[in-house]
C-alpha cells in the first residue's frame, strides 16, 4: 500500500519534525514493513489481517498512535457539507434489492455529473499511489478507495436496464465483459450486481464495460457496499482476477464505511465540481450487528506480555486506534471499531497494546523449567547416529528433493499405482514423491560425474512415500574408485562395498543381518542384487536391498556407459532392533584359539552362505569363526568350480584345545562338506 506522507499528514497531526524516513520507521516498528520509499511516498507491506490499513486513513491512524499525536479518530472533523442535507432512506429512483445474504450492506446514491479530467492534485495523488487517473468520476471512487479503504463503483444510470439494482447470484453460464474488456463466463457460486436484465458487475471484484462511466454519462449511480470476504475471495480466485477492490473485500471491509464512504465521495464530487447528489441515499443493511465488546483483564495483559504497561498508555493506545475503552476497576471494557475485523478476542487487544508499547521494551526473561526435559525422539537420534556413522565411513551426506520426475521415480516404485503424485506440481521435474532414496541420489551422482568428479559416495536419510504412507529410509550410492593413491593401481568400487555399508548399519543397530539373492528389484542387474534380512527371534524380516544399478537406468539419468554404480537402501523402521549402545559385552577369551585353513573346490553356483551353514552345523561349539579369505577360479580349477579358502577359528571358554580334538572337528567338517555339497579338498 503506497501512502504519500502529505496525505497522511492531512489525517493526523504528525510532528513537523518527523521526516518521511522517520514516519516510515515508526510505522514499520508497529508491524507494517516498508517495501520502499520514493520521495514523499512510502510503500508499506500490509499483513493479511489488516485490511483497514489498505488505506491512507488506516496508516495515518497507526502513525498517529506511534507518535502519540492526534489522529483520524481523535481529531474533531466536521461532516462533509453534502452530508448535512443528505437524507438516508429506502426510497430512490433506482430501487435496490438484495437477493443474497452474501451482500451484507448496499448503499447507493445518484448524482448528476459532468465527466472530465480530474484536478491535477487528485490525479497526482492517484498516480503516486499507483492508480491511473481515468476521469473525475472514476477518480473520485478510487480516491475514496485509497483514503478510506472502501471500494466503490459508479454505473452510468442511462445504461442500466430498469433502471434498478439487484444483488444476486450469477446464473450458470451468464457472461459479462468486465472493465478490462475480458469476456467472463460466470457460474452460480458468484455474486453479481445486476440491472433489470443482466449482470452489470461482479460483486466486489470488477464492474462491467457496458455500464461504465464514459464522456457521455450525465447521471451516475454510485455504489458503496459490503460483500462477504469468502465469496469475493473465491470469485476473484476462480476468475483469476485480482483487483484493488477484491483485495479489500476479501480480507474484510468496514461495514460502517459503506455509507460514510458514499457521503465523502459525494462531497468530493461536489468539491471538484464534477457533480452533485440527486435525491436520497439508499442504504440496504439487512442485519446490522452490535459492535463487539471485549473485556481486557490487567492480569492477562501483564501475564502475556511479561511487562506492566501503565494504565494511561493502555488507554491512549487503544483509544487512538479507534477502540472505545471503559475502565472497570483494574480492567477495561473495550468496544471494537467496525474496521477492525481482525480483533475478536482479548489476545488481539493485548497485541494492540504490545505492538504500540513496543515489543523491544518488554524485558527479556527466561521460562522456568518445571519438569525434567525429555530426550529427543528416537527417530531423530537414529538419524543423527546414521549420519555420523556413514560420514565416518567415508560417505558424503546429500540432500535431494522429496519430489522428483515421474520417469526417475517409476523404476523404483512397487508399481505406478503406488506412486504418490502431486496434484498441482510446479513442473514435471517435481511431480511425484520419491518412492525411494535412490533416484535422487543417482541424479546427484550423475550431476557430479558430469562435472568430472568420478569418485562419488553419497548417502541420505529421509522420508519415502507410497500410497501405503510415509516411511523413513537411508540410501547410498557408490561409484568410481575405492582408493586413489600413486602407490597402487586404482580399484573400482563393487557390490561388496555397498554390502559393507549395509552390514555396518545393521551392526550399529545391534542386529545381525544376512544377504540373499533378490529377484524383485527390477532396478538392479540380475544376479548382482541382494536382499538384506534381519533375524528377530525366529522371524525373519527383509530390511533392505543392495545391488548394482542397471546400466540402462544409469545411462537414462545421464551417466556415461561403463560407469558402475552400486547402491543400497534400508528401511529404518525395521532397524529398530536393540540400541547397540545398551548391549552387554561378552567376557574376553582367556585361552588361546586355534586356526585351521581349508581350501575346497565347490560348484561355482554354491553360495558361500551354504558352505558356512554346513560347516557350522557339523562343527562343535568350539568353532567360533568361519571366514573366507580367498576365492579363486582359473588355472588348476575345473571350469564349473571355484576354489574357496576358509579360515576356521576354534576356541573354548574354559580350557586350551588340543590338536587332536581340533583335527577331529576339521575332519568332521570336511566329511560333512563332501557329503552335503560334494566338495573336495583342493590339492587332494
Amino acid at each position, binding site marked *: 500500500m503506497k501512502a504519500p506522507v502529505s496525505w497522511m499528514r492531512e489525517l493526523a497531526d504528525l510532528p513537523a519534525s518527523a521526516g518521511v524516513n522517520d514516519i516510515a520507521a515508526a510505522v514499520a*516498528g508497529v*508491524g507494517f*514493513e516498508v517495501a520502499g520509499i520514493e520521495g514523499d511516498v512510502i510503500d508499506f507491506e500490509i*499483513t*493479511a*489481517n*489488516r485490511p483497514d490499513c489498505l488505506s491512507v486513513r488506516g496508516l495515518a491512524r497507526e502513525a498517529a498512535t506511534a507518535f502519540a499525536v492526534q489522529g483520524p479518530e481523535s481529531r474533531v472533523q466536521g461532516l462533509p457539507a453534502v452530508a448535512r442535507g443528505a437524507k438516508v432512506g429506502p426510497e430512490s429512483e433506482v430501487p435496490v434489492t438484495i437477493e443474497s445474504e452474501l451482500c451484507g450492506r448496499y448503499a447507493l446514491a445518484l448524482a448528476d455529473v459532468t465527466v472530465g479530467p480530474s484536478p491535477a492534485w487528485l490525479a497526482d495523488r492517484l498516480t503516486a499511489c499507483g492508480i491511473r487517473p481515468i476521469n473525475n468520476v472514476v477518480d473520485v471512487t478510487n480516491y475514496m478507495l485509497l483514503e478510506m479503504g472502501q471500494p466503490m463503483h459508479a454505473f452510468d444510470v442511462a445504461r442500466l436496464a430498469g433502471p434498478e439494482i439487484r444483488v444476486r447470484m450469477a446464473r450458470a453460464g451468464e457472461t459479462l465483459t468486465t472493465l478490462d474488456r475480458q469476456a467472463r463466463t460466470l457460474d452460480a457460486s458468484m455474486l453479481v450486481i445486476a440491472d433489470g436484465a443482466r449482470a452489470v458487475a461482479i460483486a466486489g471484484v470488477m464492474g462491467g464495460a457496458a455500464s461504465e462511466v464514459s464522456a457521455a454519462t450525465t447521471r451516475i449511480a454510485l455504489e458503496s457496499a459490503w460483500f462477504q*470476504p469468502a465469496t469475493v*475471495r*473465491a470469485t476473484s480466485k476462480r476468475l483469476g482476477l485480482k483487483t484493488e477492490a477484491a483485495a479489500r473485500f476479501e*480480507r474484510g471491509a468496514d461495514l460502517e464505511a459503506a455509507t460514510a464512504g458514499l457521503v465523502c465521495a459525494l462531497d468530493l464530487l461536489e468539491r471538484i465540481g464534477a457533480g452533485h447528489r440527486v435525491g436520497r441515499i439508499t442504504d440496504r443493511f439487512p442485519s446490522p450487528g452490535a459492535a463487539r465488546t471485549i473485556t481486557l483483564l490487567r492480569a492477562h495483559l501483564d*501475564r*502475556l*506480555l*511479561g*511487562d506492566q504497561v501503565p494504565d494511561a498508555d493502555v488507554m491512549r493506545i487503544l483509544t487512538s486506534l479507534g477502540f472505545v475503552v471503559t475502565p472497570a476497576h483494574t480492567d477495561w471494557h473495550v468496544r471494537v471499531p467496525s474496521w477492525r475485523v481482525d480483533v475478536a478476542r482479548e*489476545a488481539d487487544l*493485548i497485541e494492540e497494546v504490545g*505492538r504500540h508499547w513496543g*515489543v*523491544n521494551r518488554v*524485558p527479556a526473561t*527466561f*521460562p*522456568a523449567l*518445571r519438569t525434567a*526435559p525429555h530426550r529427543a*525422539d528416537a*527417530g*531423530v537420534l537414529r538419524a543423527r547416529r546414521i*549420519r*555420523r556413522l*556413514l*560420514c*565416518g565411513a*567415508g560417505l*558424503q*551426506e*546429500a*540432500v535431494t528433493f*522429496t*519430489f522428483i520426475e515421474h520417469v526417475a521415480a517409476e523404476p523404483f516404485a512397487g508399481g505406478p499405482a503406488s506412486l*504418490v*503424485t*502431486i*496434484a*498441482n506440481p*510446479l513442473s514435471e521435474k517435481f511431480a511425484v514423491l520419491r518412492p525411494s532414496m535412490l533416484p535422487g541420489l543417482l541424479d546427484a551422482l550423475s*550431476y*557430479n560425474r558430469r*562435472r568430472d*568428479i568420478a569418485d*562419488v*559416495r553419497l*548417502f541420505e536419510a529421509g522420508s519415502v512415500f507410497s*500410497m501405503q*504412507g*510415509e516411511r523413513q529410509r537411508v540410501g547410498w550410492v557408490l561409484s568410481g574408485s575405492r*582408493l586413489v*593413491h600413486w602407490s597402487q593401481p586404482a580399484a573400482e568400487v563393487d557390490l561388496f562395498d555397498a554390502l559393507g555399508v549395509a552390514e555396518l548399519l545393521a551392526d550399529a543397530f545391534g542386529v545381525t543381518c544376512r544377504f540373499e539373492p533378490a529377484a524383485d528389484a527390477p532396478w538392479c542387474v540380475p544376479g548382482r542384487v541382494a536382499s538384506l534380512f534381519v533375524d528377530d527371534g525366529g522371524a525373519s524380516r527383509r530390511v533392505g536391498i543392495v545391488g548394482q544399478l542397471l546400466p540402462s537406468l544409469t545411462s537414462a539419468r545421464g551417466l556415461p556407459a561403463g560407469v558402475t554404480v552400486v547402491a543400497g537402501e534400508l528401511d529404518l523402521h525395521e532397524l529398530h532392533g536393540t540400541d547397540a549402545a545398551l548391549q552387554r559385552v561378552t567376557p574376553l577369551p582367556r585361552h588361546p584359539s586355534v586356526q585351521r585353513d581349508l581350501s575346497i573346490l565347490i560348484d561355482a553356483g554354491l553360495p558361500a552362505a551354504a558352505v558356512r551353514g554346513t560347516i557350522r552345523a557339523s562343527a562343535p561349539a568350539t568353532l567360533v569363526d568361519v571366514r573366507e579369505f580367498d576365492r579363486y577360479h582359473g588355472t588348476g580349477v575345473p571350469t564349473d568350480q571355484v576354489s574357496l579358502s576358509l579360515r576356521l577359528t576354534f576356541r573354548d571358554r574354559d580350557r586350551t584345545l588340543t590338536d587332536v580334538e581340533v583335527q577331529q572337528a576339521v575332519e568332521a567338517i570336511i566329511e560333512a562338506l563332501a557329503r552335503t555339497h560334494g566338495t573336495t579338498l583342493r590339492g587332494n
Partner: protein
Amino acid sequence: MTPMAASSIEDLSRQFRAALDAASSPADLKALRDDFLSRKQGRVTALVKSIATAPPEERRALGSMANALKQEIEQALDARDAAMLATARPKDTVDVSLPARRPWVGRRHPLTQVRERVEDIFMAMGYQVVAGPEIEDDWHNFEALNMPAAHPARDMQDTLYLSSPVPAPDNARAATLLRTHTSGMQIRHMEAHDPPVRIIAPGRVYRRDNFDATHTPMFTQVEGLVVDENISLGDLKGTLNAFAEEFFDAKVATRFRPSFFPYTEPSAELDVECQGCSGRGCGLCKHTGWIEILGCGMVHPAVFEAVGYDANRYTGFAFGMGIERLALRLYGVDDIRMFYENDLRFLEQIAL
C-alpha cells in the same frame, strides 16, 4: 710424578673431547679411533709406551691415569658409534612430500550441520526434539492453527496438494498435502501430551515456489513451542536472544518487529544485526543493517482450544526459523540452489 707427564695426559683428554665434538660421521669416528687408539700410531698407545721412560716412582700413578684415559676414549667412541647407527639414514627413504593415503571420510550436509547446531542449542535449554510426517492433513497444517478454509492467510503459503489422499497409520486423518510449515507439529504434540511443553520440531517443508537463487519449493524449518502457566512474551524474547547469541557465537543485537501469523497473537519477527556489516548496512542486509531470521509469537488461544488445552490457564510461545536462511548467512552462500545440487566441490568445503 712430574707435572709435565700428568699435564700431557690431561691435554690428550681435552684434545680427544674436542675432536669427538667435531666428529659428524662414522668415518670421522673411525679416524678418531685410529688417531688415539691405533696399536701402531695411536696417541694413547704412544703415551702408554712413554711411561716406561718416566721415573720409577711415578710410573704406577701415570699408568693408571693412562689406562683411565684409554677406557674413557673407548667408551665415548662406542657410545657415539651406537648413537650414529641409531640415527643413520636407511637406503630406502620416503619422500614425505608425496600425497598421503587419506582414509575415506564424508561430511554432514551443511543444512544438517546448521540444523543440528540449532537442535543442540535448544536441547541444552531443555527442549525435546520431535519429528513428524511431511505429508499432512488439512487439520494439522491449517485448521487447528486458526486457518479455517478460505482464510486469506492460506495465501501466504502456496500449498502443494496430493492427487489422492494417502492413508495415515492408526486410522488418523489421511494426508492430503505436503506440509507448508512445521507448525503442524505443535498440534500433533499438544494433542498427545499435556503441558508443560518444551519442544522443537525440525523438518522439511514445501511450498509451491519457484526454484531460483532465493526461493526453493522445499526447505527446512525448525519449529519451537513452549507451553506452561505464565509463559510471557518476555520469555520468548529471552529465549530467542539466548539462541541468537549461541548460534552466532557472539553478542548480537536483536530486534523484534510486530508481524502477523494466524496461530500466534501477538506475533513478531526477529531480526539480528547483520553480521556482514555489523549493522552499518550492506548488500547482504539490503542496507537496513538487519537480517530477519525467524517468525514468532504467543500461541493463539484458538490453537489451544483446537487441541483441548485450557486457554485461560496456559500461555505459550512458538517460533519457526528457516535453516537455509541461516545457512546462507553462516557459509556466505548467495544462491540457495547450491544446497540442493550436492556438488562435491561445494560440499567438501564444509567443515568435517
